[in-house]
């Protein structure tokens, strides 16, 4: 029964038991460990950005990113270096973000600086990348979480549907259907933010 305390316990049980397995995996050879560090240095920003897109709050970002890279380290020896790295990392980030978000207490809070409804610009008028990025991050929170990786990987990161399908271990057809739905969610979320922005500006000018 999804969402019941009992199932949460069971899930935690499985997670912790398997975490044990991860802890007992052998250490990486030196060359791989160095490769891991290179990956960490080059991809931390991308992983953090991905976690933000998946709704991880700024206050928890470092803790979740740390957990992602610990898991990446554990699985690093199994990675196929001929496959693109980032989709593989997104899969880790998505699962960690999902777990994180499953806890109802973890909600995204935007400070005023990043709140796109605080902007005086419409989505079409957003002048700077920073404004646009804030709007995208906010609108992504309106996209159903299971659809979000497909949207971010395809429409932001530019991965092909087959790469996405492989990384998320879902059929290509599912990638396409989720992408359609995710775009619709995103469109509605941007429109909603725009409505809130207009209402806020009208309220401000009426004072």
């Amino acid at each position: 029964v999804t969402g019941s305390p009992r199932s949460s316990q069971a899930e935690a049980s499985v997670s912790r038991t398997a975490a044990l397995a991860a802890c007992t995996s052998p250490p990486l050879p030196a060359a791989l460990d160095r490769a891991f560090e290179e990956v960490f240095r080059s991809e931390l920003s991308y992983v953090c950005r991905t976690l933000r897109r998946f709704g991880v709050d700024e206050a928890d970002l470092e803790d979740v990113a740390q957990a992602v890279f610990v898991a990446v380290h554990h699985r690093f020896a199994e990675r196929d270096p001929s496959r693109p790295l980032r989709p593989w990392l997104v899969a880790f980030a998505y699962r960690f973000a999902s777990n994180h978000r499953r806890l109802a207490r973890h909600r995204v809070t935007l400070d005023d600086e990043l709140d796109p409804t605080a902007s005086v610009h419409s989505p079409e008028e957003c002048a700077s990348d920073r404004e646009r990025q804030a709007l995208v991050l906010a609108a992504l929170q309106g996209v159903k979480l299971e659809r979000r990786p497909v949207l971010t990987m395809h429409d932001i990161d530019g991965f092909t549907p087959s790469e996405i399908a492989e990384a998320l271990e879902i059929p290509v057809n599912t990638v396409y259907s989720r992408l359609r739905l995710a775009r619709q969610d995103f469109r509605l979320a941007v429109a909603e933010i725009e409505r809130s922005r207009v209402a806020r500006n009208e309220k401000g000018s009426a004072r």
Partner: protein
Amino acid sequence: MNHRLPPIEPHLEELLRAESRFPPESAEREDRVFAAVRTHLGTGTGTGGPPDEGGAAPRTAAYPRLRLPAIASWLGGAMIGATLGSAITLALVSGAPRTMPPTAKDAIPAELEHEVVSAAAEVDAPLEQPPAPAVHEAEPLPDPVVPAPVGPEPRARIDRTSDEAALAPAATDPAQTLRDEQRIIEAARAALAERSYDAALEALARHRARFAGGALAEERDALIVRALAASGRLERARAAAAAFERDHPESFYRRTLERALAP
């Protein structure tokens, strides 16, 4: 199935394109997270990886290789916080892509299976009224900075095995000592991520009692400041931050703490 996608509106496309030009994280954050990852893995904070086979430098604790009794009691102790999860350990596997073994049981060596299954069954037990460890209450908090829990019982009663570890004779094996430290710090970090500040502080006090000058003392002291600040006890947080600055003047956690204390 029709794989053709309808075109996306130009202004939305432009927004999404802008998001692909996201700014990099700061070097401080990179260092902090990397150090935390290394601490968790027990591989130190140096830039080099583990030595090659036959290399001179021993790894103090490659991966945390948990002894079975510790594993079982750790899993049992972890049940208390099971519904809340842990930012690190809970997500270790469910956060990993499905290239991991399909079930945890499959991943456990046969000789470990019995203990793990018992521990997992314990984790599935009801959470109501976990027995409070009598000895723990008798143990004085060593640091006046760490407050006693106030108000309702903290939601995340964490890692009772740490109590046992605190009472056990000091481990002579440095790797085991580090693992014991890690377990407590990890529990505190998980509680902090879940905003169970009293539970986090409780764990940190236990760490200080057991490992005052331990390898993870710096991380512990930083977490104390963060937990106090996050729970709104700002005066105590500032006092703890001042002590931290005195004890760890070169720490790269200092900037994090400054941010945690910023108005």
